[in-house]
């Protein structure tokens, strides 16, 4: 994966727009196989989401997916990925958030994209990421009384529990 240097960044109009809007929000830009990933800080996520969805020249109105990667034992352990899609501009963008293992809380984006509701419940269920401001954060796939979060890398895959 290629880390894009700040001087190259201006080539991508979406990254340029984001930089112009708030230089602090963009922590890092990654390029891999023609896909752009913008790493944002946790405190800027909700603002950045609103900006990307509402800005008339960007219109990332469709949230395709939210998914987490557990980098255990590396810290910050979790990477939460948001796959955005602009339906009419036909462009995709990935937002990435790095979250520490001892405090896996992320602001909820349900106010910007209502579809995030079930996505966030799934990530809470399988990874134990807590989404602050989510209207109904419950398990969705596992039973309510289940212990642990199965997709975490330190979750045992064999034997009795």
């Amino acid at each position, binding site marked *: 994966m290629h880390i894009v240097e700040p001087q190259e960044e201006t080539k991508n109009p979406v990254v340029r727009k984001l930089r112009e809007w708030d230089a602090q929000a963009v922590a890092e830009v990654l390029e891999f196989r023609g*896909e752009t990933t913008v790493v944002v800080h946790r405190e800027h996520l909700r603002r950045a989401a609103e900006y990307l969805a509402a800005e008339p020249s960007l219109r990332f109105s469709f949230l395709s997916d939210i998914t987490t*990667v557990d980098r255990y034992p590396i810290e910050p352990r979790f990477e939460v*990925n948001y*796959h955005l899609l602009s339906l009419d501009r036909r462009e995709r963008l990935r937002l990435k958030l790095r979250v520490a293992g001892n405090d896996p809380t992320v602001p909820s984006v349900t106010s910007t994209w*209502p*579809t995030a509701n*079930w996505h966030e419940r799934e990530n809470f269920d399988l990874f134990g990421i807590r989404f602050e401001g989510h209207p109904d954060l419950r*398990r969705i*796939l596992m039973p309510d009384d289940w212990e642990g979060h199965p*997709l975490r890398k330190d979750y045992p895959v064999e034997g009795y529990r």
Partner: protein
Amino acid sequence: MVLNMGPQHPSTHGVLRVILELEGEIVVKAEPVIGYLHTGIEKTCERLTYSQAITLTDRIDYLAPLSNNLGYCLAVEKLLGIEAPKRAQYIRVMLTELTRISSHLVWVGTHAIDLGAMSVFLYTFREREEIQKIFEFISGQRMMTSYFRVGGLALEPPPGYLDQVRRFIDTFPARLDEYEDLLTQNRIWLGRTKGVGFLSATDAIAMGASGPLLRASGVAFDNRKAFPYSSYDEFDFSVPTQTAGDCFARYQVRVAEMRESLKIVRQALEKIPAEGPFKATAPGIIAPSREEMKTSIEGLIYHFKIYTEGFAPPAGEVYQAIESPRGELGVFVASDGSNRPYRVKFRAPSFINLQTLPKLCEGRLIADVVACIGTTDIVLGEVDR
């Protein structure tokens, strides 16, 4: 009154439970409860090599296994930076479009059964069986085909396979007209579907609905057009849309999609060259041909290494979206540079589309809930994964 519908209710198409809060016959609140079919496919993928995980993708959306194969293979190919040869791409297009027809046939049939029209089901399953026979002829399996592999196809298709497909597409248009005769003007069908389960374009986008659900609400978005993969840009087809946003509009969109798929299959039949490689040449990643394995020492070494330890793509993450019969099937693969995927995530269209169910049926009669569940065309295997 609170009514528990499912998880063993026949019209929930699997094991979906819906908790309905009723005011007389009116649904005040509907809450889908899922997870009864959760088998941990994503977790299992992490323990398998890239090629082994293909067999799991069949079992996600078991009505469109080839679409899942395609989404996953394309994602891994993107990760590796390789591409399947043109011949394989055209065969992939032909087979996924047949999958779309077969999946929509099951949908029309079961949806009609749910709403009381028994006979349509018997007819659509007759045609579906024809498609299953084609799949069996080509891949050796009716449903769990695993026919698409990273870099191409599993094996050279048998002689005469194109004739089988040709025979099917020659008979099918007339059959499709028959279903339309049974349903499109049918007063009971219209009464049960027209104006039922309304979803506006704004709501559809906000709720992340994709596929026929989105297109029946007037948004002409299709991944095959917007982000062409597997040479879809070389095919001439249109994206059917409707603006009514109700169950009937979704029925119309799906029937129109079957006709468009037929168009694509017909073009593919002309495009597919009689001979040519069916998988990419990439030493160390794609197994060499049988001939090469038997005659050269490098071939034998690669064959042994690929089938024992697999291949290791560079570290990185990709997201590949395709248009499955149900909507946007996204496959996110994260690699850490080893021979097993570090994380695989399937953005299952059924899972997201099901989220619109409360929007569709709240404030409507309890009988409409069945129509609304049917019209979202969910496959519970895909919802729960």
